Structure formats: C-alpha cells, structure tokens
C-alpha cells in the first residue's frame, strides 16, 4: 500500500511526456554509488493486520479507560465532550494547512480568531496568539519576548522554583545561546516575597505559576505586589496558569500579569502520552506586536464582508528570516481548534462548574487522605485540584501497589524533581474522579500501608 493511484499505463504515458525511459532516470542527480541502497524494514501489513498489531501494543498500556487516575503534574485527565472530537475529525479542518490563502481558509482562520478571543476572556488579556507547541515552549517564547521588549539589554530572568520543572528546563534549553542569567529557582523555598528581592534593573521578566506545580493558589494581592515590583524596573510579569482554574478564579490579568500562558491540553485535548498539546499565550495590548507565533486578525474583503487573515506576519520567519521574533513556523492549529470547541461547549457556566467540581473533589480527597495514619498534607496553602501529600512509604512503593493491586494510577513522586520533597506524592483530582474512585484510593492507601506495616512487624518477629 502506498496510496499511489497510478496504473502501469499512466506511468508509461507520464514517462513518455517527460521524455525519459524509466523512473530511475529521474534520479540521475543522486550520486550513483548511493542510489537505491539496501533498506531493511518489516514486511508491509494490510489494514487488518496493522490495526491488530496496534491494538495489541496499545493494550500493553494501563490506560485511563481501565484505570482510575490521580496523576496530573502538567497533563490532566479532564472530560472531553463528544462534540470536540467530532469537529476536529472534519477533514476540511485536519487535512488543511496553514491558511496562506485566506479565501479558502476562513474555517481555520475564524476558528482561530474565536479561540484567541476566548483565551483573552479566560485570562483577562488583550491579545492571544494562535498557540505554541505546548505550555513549556510557550514559556520559553515568553522569556525571549521579554528579552526583546528590553532590547536585549536586560538579561536577568527571575523564575519561581514552583514552576513545572520541565518548563524551567525548556527555558534553559531555548535560551542557552542568549547569555541570560536565570535566578530564583535554585532554592525551592523561594516564595513570592523572596522572588521580589531578586528583581533588579537588569531583570527583563519575573515568572510565576498559579496554581503552582504543587497545586497551590496565591492570593491576587500578593502577586500584584510582585507585579508592581517588576513593573517598577520595566520587567514583565509572566504567569503560567492552568486554564481550567481560570474558569473559577480571578484571571491573572486582574493581578498584574503582562503575559499569561500555559498548557492548553486540559481544554478538550486527549492525554496522548504527552502530546500533541498546545501552549496558549496571551498578553497585554502593548506587547501584541512582540508576540511570537501566528496571529489571526479581522479585516474586510473586496466585497465588503468581514473576514479573517493571518496578520502582523512581518514578525515571522518566512519574511524576516534571521531577524524574526522566533523560528516558529506552525501553531498547534488542530489542538487550538479542540480548545476553542471545548470552551464554546462548556461556555460561561460549564467551565466554572468543571473547575468547581475539581476544587470540591480535590478538597474532599485531601481531607480524607490527610486523616489516614501516616499521611499528611505537605503544604498549608489554598489549592485548586492538586495537592502534595507526605507519605509513610516510598511513593514508588505506593504507586506500584496501587497500580497492580487496585487498578489505580497514583500521583507523581515529587522526589523525582524536588529532592527536598522526597516521600511526597502530588495527587490530582478532577471532575473525572467520582466519589467512589476517591474512596477507593483512600481505602487502597490505608490498606497498603497497613499491610506493609504488618509485614514489617512479622519480619521483626
């Protein structure tokens, strides 16, 4: 199977038109000694066979249709309404490309314009782009944008240690050739006040996450104080935010953020083992022209009708080449479409309801787990849908037991990223977790620890 429609007669006619004898003649510029090399791949499969193979492979995984999941940490098990996959499965959307010719791309363009508008509404910002690869790359682009806003003279970046560790890593990878000084995230104890002391005249941006990696919410007034300190030295405040939390809590635009970005996967996108996702990115009006990535704007056509085009393209690589704001060439259009459909389907009330369900269920779970012997909440803070728990057994041990004996995918072992939080599990509860599931998790944790202790005692005897 190669999806090539040519018959032998077609091929002959086409070769004759070109004026060559054989298809091989068309590769005359490929150095002869390197032409048609030995190639070893498995024998091709029919559709029946490949689907059987893939089903087998996929069934080796523990998937969320068959296991309860309390794992979050940047990728979330939220409900995806049926309408979302139906819309993104329309092949007029998914088999199109970048809307270079707007007259035959209004579907893509208008849906992105609507997405941008909804992201602005959610974050309290004035402008949003058509999306980045994911939340982490959106953050890296925000830092580079801040550097550009400061005309590359201000080279200090203040990062909160409670930003997703992989996001901070990506910022470092992206900016390794830019001579930045990145401070703040080396000490996990640095809170908003401590970060404020790190801001100086050389600082181009301060980045915090809210809710942070541990699920904790900060108070708007505290973040506003940090924003004021940043603005006093003409630095930007960048806030990484869970878009679902923005359905319930004050948007970062209300407490001084200049840029709001984050992982948009939670908005109607499948977990997909980490991708493809989308990084949403929004900012204040003043910085709209400094944003990287695709932007869609409204205009009129030759007939006087409203229409949409990619705009401010002079920032982009295909025009400015080495002077572009970024090398980004695509966005995650289909993921952004899913996010747009999701937000429209949820609407004003639905998104708030989802966020409230997460909040109540997470608090119920936290309360019950904290009441178990040996378990306690690691942080005394307001939180949204995630919380860290100090555990009486190694997190890996608990997770192995949960998975194998209870069919539960447990939380993240925080020791993996934060040595000072070894023995803590980061749990996530969403609207997808019923009370029954939460109760099952609590029972499981209790029993695993009891059994373990009994075994220890027997061992001691």
């Amino acid at each position, binding site marked *: 199977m190669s*999806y090539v429609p040519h018959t032998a007669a*077609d*091929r002959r006619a*086409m070769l004759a*038109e*070109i004026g060559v004898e054989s298809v091989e003649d068309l*590769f005359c510029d*490929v*150095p002869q000694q390197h032409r048609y090399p030995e*190639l*070893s791949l498995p024998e091709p499969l029919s559709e029946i066979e490949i689907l059987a193979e*893939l089903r087998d*492979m996929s069934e080796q*995984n523990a*998937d969320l249709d068959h296991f309860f*999941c309390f794992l979050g940490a940047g990728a979330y098990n939220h409900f995806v309404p049926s309408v979302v996959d139906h819309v993104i*499965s*329309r092949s007029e*959307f998914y088999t199109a490309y*970048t809307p*270079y*010719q*707007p007259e*035959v791309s*209004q579907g893509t363009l208008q849906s992105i314009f609507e997405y941008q*508008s909804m992201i602005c*509404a*959610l974050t309290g910002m004035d*402008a949003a782009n058509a999306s980045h690869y994911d939340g982490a790359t959106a953050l890296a682009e925000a830092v580079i944008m801040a550097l550009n806003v400061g005309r590359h003279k201000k080279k200090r970046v203040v990062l909160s240690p409670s930003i997703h560790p*992989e996001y901070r890593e*990506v910022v*470092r990878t992206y900016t390794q*050739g830019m001579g930045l000084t990145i401070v703040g995230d080396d000490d996990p104890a640095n809170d908003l006040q401590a970060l404020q002391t790190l801001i100086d005249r050389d600082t181009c941006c301060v980045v915090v996450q809210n809710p942070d990696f541990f699920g904790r919410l900060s108070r*708007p007034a505290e973040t506003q104080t940090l924003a004021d300190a940043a603005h006093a030295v003409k630095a930007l405040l960048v806030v990484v935010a869970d878009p679902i939390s*923005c359905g*319930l809590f*004050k948007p970062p635009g209300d407490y001084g953020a200049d840029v709001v970005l984050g992982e948009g996967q939670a908005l109607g996108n499948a977990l997909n*083992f*980490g991708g*493809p996702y989308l990084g949403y990115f929004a900012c204040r009006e003043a910085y709209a022209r400094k944003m990287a990535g*695709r932007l869609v704007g409204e205009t009129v056509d*030759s007939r006087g*009708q409203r*229409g949409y*085009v990619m*705009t401010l393209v002079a920032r*982009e690589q295909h025009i400015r080449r*080495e002077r572009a704001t970024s*090398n980004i*060439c*695509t966005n995650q259009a*289909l*993921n952004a479409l899913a996010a747009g459909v999701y*937000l429209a*389907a949820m609407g004003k009330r*639905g998104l708030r309801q989802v966020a409230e*369900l997460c909040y*109540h269920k997470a608090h*119920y779970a936290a309360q019950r787990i904290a009441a178990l012997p040996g378990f306690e909440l690691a942080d005394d803070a307001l939180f949204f849908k995630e919380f860290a728990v100090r555990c009486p057994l190694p997190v890996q041990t608990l997770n*192995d037991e949960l998975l194998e004996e209870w069919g539960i995918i447990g939380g993240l072992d925080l020791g993996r990223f934060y040595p000072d939080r070894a023995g803590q599990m980061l749990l996530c509860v969403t609207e997808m977790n019923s009370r029954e599931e939460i109760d099952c998790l609590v029972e499981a944790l209790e029993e695993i620890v009891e059994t373990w202790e009994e075994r220890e005692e027997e061992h001691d005897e």
Partner: protein
Amino acid sequence: MSEKVESLIFEISSPGRTAVSLPTCDVPETELPSDLTRDDLPLPEVSEVDLIRHYIRLSQLNWGVDVGMYPLGSCTMKYNPKVNEVATRLPGFARTHPYQDHCSVQGNLQLMYRLQEYLQEISGFAAVTLHPSAGAHGEFTGILVMHAYHQANGDTKRTKILIPDSAHGTNPASTTMSGLQVVEIPSDERGNVDLAALKVQCDDTVVGLMLTNPNTLGLFEEHLLAVTDLIHGCGGLVYGDGANLNAILGVAKPATLGFDVMHFNLHKTFSTPHGGGGPGSGPVGVSARLAKFLPGPVVAEETESECACGHAHPDHDDEPCYHLVMPEASVGRLKAFYGNFGVLVRAYTYIRMLGVEGLREVAESAVLNANYLQARLKDVYPIPYGDRICMHEFVAQGEIEGAPDVHALDVAKRLMDLGHSHPPTIYFPLIVPEALMIEPTETESKETLDQFVADLSQIAEEARTNPELLHEAPRDTPVGRLDEVRAARQTVLRWVPPAS
C-alpha cells in the same frame, strides 16, 4: 453580508444555553475562597446543535487535501490515510498519561522505539530523537546539537552557520535563536549551492552548513558530495533540512550522502495530517558522534536481565523492557514530556503499511508527478530551471507573456475560482521572482494532474485575453480578496462585545 459568511460563536450566544451536561457534585462541598474567585467569565453560551452547525459550516469554508489537490510547494500535502486516525485514537494510546510509570506504558515505548529504529534505517543515521514538535523545532535542535559537539571538543571559536539563499526562513531564524551567526551562500545559475562562494566561507569558524536537499527549487544538489566534503574539510558539520525527504525515500539515505544531522517532518513525508497548521512532529537523526548530544528523553531497549528498573514484568517474561533515557550530554529538553506521541502513532502506522517497496514507490511517484507537471507546463509558464529533471517539486513563475499586469498572486487567486485545486506556494523561494512553487505529491492521479494543467493553461490564456478575471479573482469563494494591510494597521485580534 453573503450567506456564506458565518457569524462568530459569540454572536450566536444566548444567556442560559449550554452544550454540555456535567455531573452534580457527589462529595461534600468545600467553601470557596471568595477573594480569589472571579465574578464574570465572558465565554459564549450556545446549545450543542448550534455549536455543531457553527463548526461544520466553518469547516465548509476550508480547502483541504480531502477536498481536492493541494500542491503547496515544500509542504508535501499528500493524502492522509484514515487508518492513521483510527490508530492514534485507540484508547490504549490516547488515554495514557505521560508520567505513568514506564512499566505501565510499554506499548507506547515499544512503538516509539521501533519508530526510532525505522527512521534510522530509512535515513542511515545512528540515532534518532522523536522529541521535537515540528520541523522548525527540529532545526533548532540540530543547530544546538552541532554547536554542543564543537563546544565539547573545545572548538569554541565556531560561530557561523552557512545557509544557502534558497533555504526556508526557519533556517536563519533557528540559527539566530541559537545565538549563532548566519552567513548566506548564493545559488549558482543551475540552482545549486555556489561552490566558489561556499569555499570562501569554509574556515575554522564554521559550525556547519544547513542544506535542504532536494532544495526549495526542487533540485537535487548536483555537487552534493563536493559540498559536504568542503564542509567536513574545514571541520564543520552538515545539517540536512529534511523538509523534502519525500523525494528520496528509499532511493538515497541522507547519512550516506554526507549529512551529519537531519530533521524529519512526519507531517509531510510520513502522511500525518497538517491539521490546519499543526500539530506536526520533527524527529532528528544524527551520526554516531553526535548521538550523545540529542535532546530527549529517547527510548532505550533493555533485555529484562539487564533491566535496572527493579520491576517484575510478569506478563511478558521474555519481552524486552523499554525505558525513557536522557542522552548523556543532551542539549536539554525542548518541550515538556516526550514528543507529539499522537503524531508518532500515525507515522508508525504509515511506515508499517508501506514497507520498503511502498516507501520507494512514494518517492518515485512524487518525482514522476512533479516532472510530468513540469514537462506539461514548461511552455505555459516560465520555469527557470526547467531544463533540469526536478525532484518532488519545481518552481514556475507567474509571469505570462503578453500580460504584464498579471502576477503570481493573480494566478493563485484565479485557480481558486476554477475549484479543482488549492494554489501552489507563491513568492517562495525568494530567489525566483513571481514564484509558483508546485509540489503535487505522489497521491494525485494523472487525471487530477491533467486537470491542474488545463486550469493553469486556461488562466494563462485568460491573463492575455481577459486579465480582469484574474485581478478580480477569486469570485466564487466564500470571501473575496481580504485587506491584509488593514488587518495589520487596524489590528483586531479578538472579538469585543458591541457597546450596548
């Protein structure tokens, strides 16, 4: 307004409507911190039926590969097999979390490992990372890797990246992001890299050359081995922009042609859909000496006896265990998690269904189709390098004798009215004036190509006899030509409620 123009989702909103049903709260409620909650959330309120009709009508305003030919040069808009879509939505794949313990996602890791192996075999490279999200992301990766290699060798004065003037704009943009310096190399009169100009730049400050081969003119570099030798001779590395790999699948391996690094565009060569502009996927292959610098994690295979994870694998005793590992001198992470896994499943499915013969047939037919179109259009439009055999694409010019006021843009717009094809890429590559960059791909039939020739011939004729038809085009599309200058000057980037 014409009936074809669709209202914005906000404009069909009405207070109290919703398109979802959510469960009632089944746990005791916890008080909300009132100083933190928001008052208003200005999202639309629509019913499910209105929502679906809105998006379906929007979809009908789009052109896609499933609607008709899409010869967008350099974008490889081939048919996207439907089995790929079924494969990636299998719940065992789609409903897995990236931070699950590796023992619980062996199926995912096995698929990724095999895909790494297949891409290595197809390209001849020693190692592949599936981590980058797109072609430009892969390019950036490649530059970081080349730079890291020189740095590790203590070769710190290398700061120059050589880039031919025919290159994609992402090449110089990625270079700047890496903090390196771009040096542009001109093309010669046959569309190749100008060897003499290249030689002048080859010294001990060269990090590497970024070469798209076949290049954006659709031409295979005639002196490729001389070019790669020159770069290697001065201690530099050769980066291959794999955007055009479709032309040589199974016919040549980039690694044996002298490339040290290359990115793959799974969304071009390996049939994964373009999604209206993404998601893509840009794995990167490298030669052995660069493997340890790759971004990751990558997937490693270990037989159980060596497996260090300490977990028992009771279900598959004799099976190998797959792990995520970070290459030892990695340039770092380029995104959260591992790669665009959903896209990887599609590419894997495609490679498994095609096999060696199928992949070769792809390249051969892609090149056959392009040459057929070039041969048939040669007398209709100027084709600057039309005396050469092209690869998977070629560049014609929208300059028609006897029609001085007609431009590539007009030809493109008129093509939309004829309704059989999306226009080609226009005004790229920059080195060809009035460029019409045409890439038919292998999945278009001879009949479709003949229709495309008939359309372009008709347009050339109209340009001479009735140029207004072109200048006023498109007339049969949902909207006419859009005022892009106005969009950029009076920027409207979001909907705002009308003042009441």
